């Protein structure tokens, strides 16, 4: 069986055609399977951080802490939210280039960059929270040891995030290499 003979079979293959209305619904981000999940996650994240941003000053005695510490925490929360929104946009716009290899290469670079920023924002968020809650504490040896223990969260988070983002970037790199040959 020659491959050229199979061209006809391939060209006439298909599936149950979808009607125009079904396709029209697919143009909305709300019906996109991955974007829908990210959007729900984003809404929850934004809501929780917004509540935190509004309430932290009163609930956690912001008036007793230095202005710079309050500002640092607020700024970090805003950065975390901006970063999450950029993640949504990254998934929504995968095509960027005039050929498949160019587009995959650009997307891989964007994912790597986004992954690096994800690690930086996560570390900044942890440090800001720790600075905020320890800014008015009088440190004893025991408290210092506890803080040291809590700081161990950072390398664990860095390790986990690096693993996740490297895996994603590697899969795009593999796809690029497979196409480029």
């Amino acid at each position, binding site marked *: *069986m*020659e*491959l050229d003979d*199979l*061209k006809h*079979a*391939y*060209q*006439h*293959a*298909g*599936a*149950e*055609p*979808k*009607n*125009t209305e079904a*396709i*029209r619904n*697919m*143009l909305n*981000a709300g*019906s*996109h*399977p*991955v*974007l829908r999940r990210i959007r729900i996650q984003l809404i929850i994240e934004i809501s929780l951080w917004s509540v935190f941003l509004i309430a932290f000053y009163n609930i956690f005695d912001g008036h007793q802490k230095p202005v710079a510490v309050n500002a640092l925490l607020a700024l970090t929360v805003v950065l975390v939210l901006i970063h999450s929104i950029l993640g949504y946009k990254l998934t*929504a*716009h*995968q*095509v960027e*280039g*005039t*050929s*498949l*290899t*160019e*587009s*995959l290469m650009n*997307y891989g670079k964007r994912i790597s960059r986004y992954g690096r920023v994800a690690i930086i924002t996560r570390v900044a968020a942890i440090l800001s929270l720790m600075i905020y809650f320890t800014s008015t504490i009088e440190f004893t040896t025991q408290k210092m040891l506890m803080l040291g223990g809590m700081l161990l969260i950072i390398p664990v988070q860095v390790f986990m995030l690096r693993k996740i983002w490297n895996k*994603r970037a590697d*899969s*795009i790199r*593999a*796809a690029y*290499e*497979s*196409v*480029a*040959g």
Partner: protein
Amino acid sequence: MKDEFLERISANQALIHKVCRIYRNTREDREDLFQEIVYQLWKSYAQFRGEAKFSTWMYRISLNTALASFRKPTFIYDRNATVPDRSDHPEGDDREERLFDAIKMLEDGDKALIALYLEDMSYTEMADILGITENNVGVRINRIKKKIKQYLTR
């Protein structure tokens, strides 16, 4: 613009189905990929200037989405999940089925190349879509043909 886009996508949707069939193994994954492709096509439609054929442009975006989007690890090969537009000729069905089975065993990049080849695209068109040289296209097509032939004659 939206209506014009929908009309063109509806007319060429078999192309998307074929890409989904090549790159995903279960009906659910194929449905998800179909939606992702349509969404990316719509997002990129403003950049389509008509310099290439619409189907050529569609293939580039569809393959891009299939390769770049997140894939859930699946272990089930749902061979009968998508029922193609079958002719009444049972041999034709089997031939099509076997062809897709053969394509699926290839590497992702080679799947893209053979899909374009089977659509009767020229080496120049294939090279433009993939962003590789025509020489690279020629060498790889010959290699893929051999692999598929081996699989089909097993």
